[in-house]
């Protein structure tokens, strides 16, 4: 019963998790803006969400042949690194750093807004469920 109540939140929860992973990824890019040789990464969000919510099989899974092995689940083991791409540099740099600060700042702001949107979706779903429970 409780499962069915929280099932509706699972999708948004996965999206929120991936949004926070992407936030961290972009923060890493901004942090390494002056590191020689650093290559900027970004997440293919649609692909990551498809992998995480299970509507598509992840590229690779861990096989658990012994009792002590952990099962590699792309949805819970961080941002399923297969969906991380390398940013193509728009202007080349002498120190081979490919962080484009304008793009990173824009992505960061974009991700912030979408994170807050996901938070609001979850909040509204919880409110809907609560009002259904109290029956008012």
């Amino acid at each position: 019963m409780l499962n069915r109540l929280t099932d509706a939140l699972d999708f948004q929860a996965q999206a929120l998790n991936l949004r926070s992973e992407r936030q961290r990824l972009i923060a890493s890019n901004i942090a390494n803006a002056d590191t020689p040789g650093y290559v900027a990464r970004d997440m293919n969000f649609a692909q990551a969400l498809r992998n995480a919510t299970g509507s598509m099989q992840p590229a690779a899974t861990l096989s658990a042949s012994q009792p002590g092995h952990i099962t590699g689940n792309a949805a819970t083991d961080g941002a399923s690194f297969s969906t991380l791409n390398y940013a193509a540099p728009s202007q080349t740099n002498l120190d081979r750093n490919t962080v484009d600060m304008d793009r990173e700042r824009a992505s960061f702001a974009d991700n912030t807004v979408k994170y807050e949107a996901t938070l609001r979706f979850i909040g509204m779903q919880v409110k809907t469920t609560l009002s259904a429970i109290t029956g008012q």
Partner: protein
Amino acid sequence: MSMMNIFNVSGSAASAQSQRLNVVASNLANADTVAGPDGTAYKARQVTFQTQLMGANANDPTSAGVRVSTISEDQTAGRRVHDPKHPSADADGYVTYSNVNAVEEMVNMISASRSYQNNVEVMNTAKGLILKTLQLGQ
């Protein structure tokens, strides 16, 4: 809470940038230093950054912090000025100053302070998001 790592990542970058700012301050302070009795003047210093993975998983590329890997000295010869009356002049009447280039140091300073500001802003945004997440369902 995977977002907590943002503070480690941006914090490491802010720390590295402040170290860079510190080196710039040393260089600018010593811009007009002359060579002592040993004949060698102050040499400009430069920090080099290196990526440092900070995630719980060692291969996790999503938490890449920064650390200062080396502080190297600029080995070019210092500026030599002919001034026989100067107390530090050598036998030929030349005074050796440090090899600090003030213009380069100012540019370095602006770059470091902008990067520092960027990281502080990232931390502020992350803090706002985490606080909003904590208020979820209230």
